């Protein structure tokens, strides 16, 4: 639990699950796949009502998911979708979709800055061994392929470490002084990116900055003028969706596909090859809507309790 999204997720899941009558115990895998596999083995032995898993590695945890389900324990994938095996429920914003939202915002920002969709984007990924960042990159570049006049330079910040992102930005600013947008795959990387921009003598708005996950620090940077867009992962809604369906998951009842209202966000449940999945779309946070209390980065959890789906 080394970033604010993960710690925020734990708090939100605890709160919403308590509202529907469940206690949550949290284990921290410290971003280590092997540790998470061991934790899964241990937890299976404890026979909980259900396991909520934010998989470090999308594929490596599949055997652990299978083992839990074989032991009769339902498994819920939270935020990180495992598509290589079947789970009982998946609640995600969709990493590919985050990339799509980011691409739409890049399209808008470049048009605003350069008159058309052309320019140079520095994409600062997280750790290159993490499929989460690779999926965002995939979604982003899928959409950006339609704009041949946009050059994308992609560099990974090893271990999601902020100073690595700062180093990449300071080097690239010299090699490519015409960079229009820096797009980091997490808000804490953007903080270091902004520090490098500031150290290079840039003023807010000289180079556009955007990132994803919607952490409080990103919203603060939008208010300070350094950041133009943050693609939010709807943390509260993702957690609330788990709580809304928890009774059905534990009772192993069918979850009907269709539209559901999750904390006011229209969300769709579909039956996928990997099981029932609710996708809650991420939103683009800009200076115009940054104070919207529904963004988890404003740290104002919903006052109304969630109710289980009948």
């Amino acid at each position, binding site marked *: 639990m080394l970033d*604010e999204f993960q710690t925020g997720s734990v708090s939100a899941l605890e709160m919403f699950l308590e509202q529907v009558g469940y206690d949550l115990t949290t284990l921290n895998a410290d971003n280590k796949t092997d540790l998470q596999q061991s934790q899964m083995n241990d937890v299976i032995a404890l026979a909980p009502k259900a396991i909520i898993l934010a998989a470090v590695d999308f594929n490596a945890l599949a055997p652990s998911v299978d083992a839990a389900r074989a032991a009769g324990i339902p498994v819920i994938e939270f935020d990180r979708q495992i598509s290589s095996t079947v789970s009982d429920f998946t609640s995600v914003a969709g990493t590919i979709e985050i990339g799509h939202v980011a691409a739409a915002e890049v399209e808008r920002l470049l048009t605003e800055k350069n008159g058309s969709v052309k320019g140079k984007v520095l994409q600062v990924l997280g750790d290159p061994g993490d499929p989460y960042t690779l999926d965002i990159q995939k979604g982003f570049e899928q959409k950006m392929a339609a704009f041949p006049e946009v050059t994308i330079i992609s*560099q990974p910040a090893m271990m999601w470490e902020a100073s690595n992102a700062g180093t990449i930005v300071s*080097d690239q600013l010299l090699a490519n002084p015409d960079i229009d947008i820096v797009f980091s795959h997490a808000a804490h990387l953007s903080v270091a990116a902004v520090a490098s921009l500031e150290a290079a003598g840039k003023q807010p708005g000289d180079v556009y900055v955007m990132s994803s996950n919607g952490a409080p620090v990103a919203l603060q940077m939008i208010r300070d003028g350094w950041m133009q867009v943050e693609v939010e992962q709807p943390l509260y809604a993702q957690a609330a969706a788990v709580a809304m369906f928890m009774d059905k998951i534990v009772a192993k009842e069918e979850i009907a596909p269709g539209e559901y209202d999750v904390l006011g966000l229209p969300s769709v449940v579909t039956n996928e090859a990997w099981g029932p999945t609710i996708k809650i779309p991420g939103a683009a946070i800009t200076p115009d809507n940054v104070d919207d209390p529904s963004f988890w980065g404003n740290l104002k959890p919903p006052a109304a309790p969630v109710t289980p789906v009948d």
Partner: protein
Amino acid sequence: MQPNQRRSLEFALDNLVWFMLLAVLVVFSLTVPNYFQLGIFANIIEQSSVLGVMSIGLALVIIAGHMDLSVESVAAFSAMATGILFASSGIGMGITLTPGWLVVPVSILVGLGVGAAIGALNGFLVIKIKMNAFIVTLSSFIWVRGLVVASSGGRSAQNLADELRFLAIQRVLGIPLTAYIAIVCFVGFSFMMAKTRFGRHLLMIGGNENAAFRAGIKVDKVLMIAFILSGAIAALAGWLLAIRTSGATANLGAGMLFNAFAAVVIGGVSLKGGLGALPGVYAGVLLLSSINTAINLMGLPAHYTQVIHGLLVLAAVLLDTLKQTIRKKLA
């Protein structure tokens, strides 16, 4: 061999890492687009600040024949302490002092105090309790990083006080003030190692602890100071890291330990102790930063950085072995 030839050979052996650095800079300047510019060289020096300072403390303990694996976590803890106290966003308390510049010495003292305390604990366990330094400092590496996560709750502290950020933004001759702090540290500690009794004692203890003891050197005291210095210097590195990134996150500095080890080994410090000089370590740090920068500019996947670092360390150890063989023949 003629005395002149011998002197030249010894000079080359003593400064091998600087020649390697020069060669690497020339090759990259000729082959990597946009590499040859003053701004890039300034970046290399700036990016070396944190790792450089951290490597000094590590080198002191290794020269003394021991090990300190806790430097990375100590740096992270110092960065987080600085962030929590003096950053205004996230979990930062945004403490302000009057006059404002007081935040610089106060934050340094907080960091140094934290680092020195952890270093003293490491030293006590190794020297007084006679525990293995590798295990003691490995344990510190883990529990201190745990403290970083626990104290921050996984959240970050951002927007460091302007007086601190000034050190990262203000440039003299194109280089930020933080880099000068690192350079002053290298000059100061190099002088200490070369010209003071403490430095000579460290080398002697690292070469042969029993012989140093029999020669009347207060081995325990010198080693304890080395561990405390290592902790305090790592904390200074963390303070610089917080200033560089304008705050702290729970995983800040992750992976730096291995780069610090690489720099120390490439810089010619023997892992067996008793051998090595800090200017060589600084050259090792610059060498690693030069390679990182080249990889950034070439657009190579970052995995290559690790591959190249690993091969470079291996090459450095091979060269070191070759150096020792040549020196034996010269003797």
